[in-house]
């Protein structure tokens, strides 16, 4: 399988082209303005069969721009970003594609999660410290299945 990487015009994100996910493979877009977290998420997801990171974005705006081209099954997106936060980006994605599935993540506690995060159409909200193989993969599969 051939895979090539192309740069987004802004230079901040990577679109993985030529990937033809196998059946039941969950394609994921990771959106976070922290590179360490994006890399960790890529390593986590790429290390698990049936999951593929098809795009990365550093902001909500880039995620909205790239969504139509990459059509990921699930968008894993940080809530708090400087250029279009995850909540507003989720709203815009859901306006463009009502089937868009977004899992919002945050470093805060559940109490810190804004009320708007529960009403913006996100499929789930997850605390970053709680991200583990044991709960992330089932969650993403469930979200994909529920689309």
């Amino acid at each position, binding site marked *: 399988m051939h895979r090539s990487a192309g740069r987004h015009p802004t230079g901040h994100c990577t679109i993985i082209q030529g990937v033809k996910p196998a059946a039941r493979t969950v394609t994921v877009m990771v959106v976070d303005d922290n590179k360490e977290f994006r890399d960790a998420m890529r390593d986590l997801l790429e*290390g698990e069969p049936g999951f593929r990171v098809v795009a990365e974005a550093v902001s909500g705006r880039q995620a909205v721009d790239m969504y139509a081209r990459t059509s990921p099954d699930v968008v894993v997106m940080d*809530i708090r970003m400087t250029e279009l*936060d995850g909540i507003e980006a989720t709203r815009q994605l859901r306006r463009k594609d009502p089937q868009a599935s977004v899992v919002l993540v945050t*470093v*805060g506690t559940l109490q*810190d999660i804004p*009320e*708007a995060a529960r009403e913006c159409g996100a499929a789930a909200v997850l605390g970053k*410290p709680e991200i583990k193989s044991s709960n992330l993969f089932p969650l993403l599969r469930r979200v994909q299945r529920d689309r």
Partner: protein
Amino acid sequence: MVEAENMRVGGTEDRDTGLPGVSAPIRYQFLDRWVSVVAGGCVLTVALVVGVTAAVGWDRDHPWQAATPRLAHVAVFGFVAVWAMQRPATARFGRVLLVVGLLFAVTSLSGSSNPWLYTIGRLVVPLAEVGLIYAALAFPYGRLVLRRDRLLMATLACAVVVLWTPAVVLNHEFLVGGPLVQCGDRCPANVLAVSQQTTVASGLSSLVFLVLFGCLLGAAGSLVKRYRDTSPVLRRRLLVGTCAGVAYSTVLASYAALAALIPHAQATTAIGWLVIAANLVIPIAFLVALLHGRLIARGVLLSLLRELMVAPDAVAFRMAIADVLEDPTLRLAHRQPDGELIDLQGRPLIERTNAGRAVSEVPGTADGLLLVHDPALRNDPEVFEAVCDAAAVAYDQHRQRLRVKALVEDLRSSRERLAVARDTERRRFERDLHDGAQQGFVAAQVRLGIARTRVSDESAGAESALDEASVQLDHAIGQLRDLAHGIYPAALESDGVAVALRVAASSAALRTGVNGADVGRFPREIEAAVYFSCLEAMQNADKHAGSGAHVNVALTRDAHAVRFAVTDDGKGFDPDDVAGRGGLLNIRDRLEPFGGAASINSTRGGGTAVTGWVPVQAATASRQDDPRASA
């Protein structure tokens, strides 16, 4: 540019009006009081001596008939003169009246049977009446202000010297004596007579009266013109004095005309009695005029002080002075180093505006305040200087008020900037933690999870170590998250003060309820002030209310302010206890920079209520536009 003289330069003459500049400030001298008292005493003594002399004079049948009114006349003059000399502004006028009173006292000698005394008494009569005209023209400051008045007085003096003196020396009898000199053939001889030229003397005497008639009418006209031309304030102060002067001049002119044409007619005698009555009345009229002028001056000053003390700005300040001086064109100004005048807003006063204007310095002002005004105001130096003095005091107070107001505003603004900067720094620090350490820890946690998955089948020891590291990392992430939350809670940024307080309440030691979900959003700094104020009160309740107490936080908003009340049913404390005020001071420091306030009510065993508010005006300012990321 303005050519007028500085009002404090004495003796200068105004180029536009021909009026003299205002003399140096009138300052009361202690000796003046004694000088005036002694002078008044001398006049009374002279009057007494002269009166007694007259009483034993040629009118043996009615010795007091002539002496009594003359004594009363001189006494009234002396009283008014001494009264006027008590006040610095009218001291000179008082001295003029004193001299005139002295002259009238001397006229009493015309009742003497001694030829020399009789002659002196008759000679001084016209001088006394001319002196009274001088007093009328010089009212109320005792000096002749206008050139035409000085010319009139010079003409009268010349008439007396050039015409009256020959008329006296060319006749053994005085031709016209007036009603009080009805001695007829019992009159003593004129000791100054050198020959008997009755026709020439009579002609000269008539000529004197005609000149006197013209000058008196001129004096009356001059008084009327001065009244019309002067400033409105001085016009009101001159009203009584001018009426008295015009009336006296007119009556005396009438007598002069009749004495010149029909000296022995009954009409002349009747008018003569009117002159005597006028001589008696006019010093009283001057007294009334001085009192009236003083009342007006006092009213002007009171009105000015009332207006000046509440004048909110330079425009109102100028209007207040312009109003009381009734000079709508009056301007306040400063002089530039190059001599140009600028108003208090720094705009130049253009020449067209200043043409024919006078410039006077307001003494004692720190920055050399000037008045650009109608030159006629200088004709009333008493009021004008008092207004300048009052303006100086009020102006300095006005400047002090402005300075204090600016300092208070600077202080409030500084406190607001500090509060905003503190919260901005908190937000920045919290964001740094979020974007830096917290994200790094979370990423490390994810990688630990990956490592845990990969090593699980190969090494039980490594699996255990990774699990332990993961637990420690979880703990560190929790601590870091709590730290960031304490610095600036994400919920405050994303959902506002009510939600943030609910989050804080969920981790409070005491059971805490939060009401006010519908309070809405405010500018970031206001929300931070209210949030941290409530948090301070909640933490104080946690510490001091005692276990088992309940805390309630209520947020409300009305048209004027956002308000909060943090109440508990705990132990309470004595409000006089200084130690209990520390939290309140912190809350005040939070609220006062934005115009808010806080108070605390507590009684031992009766719980505590901390209430506060921030004006809604401050809260209506739009929030900063920088992106507000959520959670």
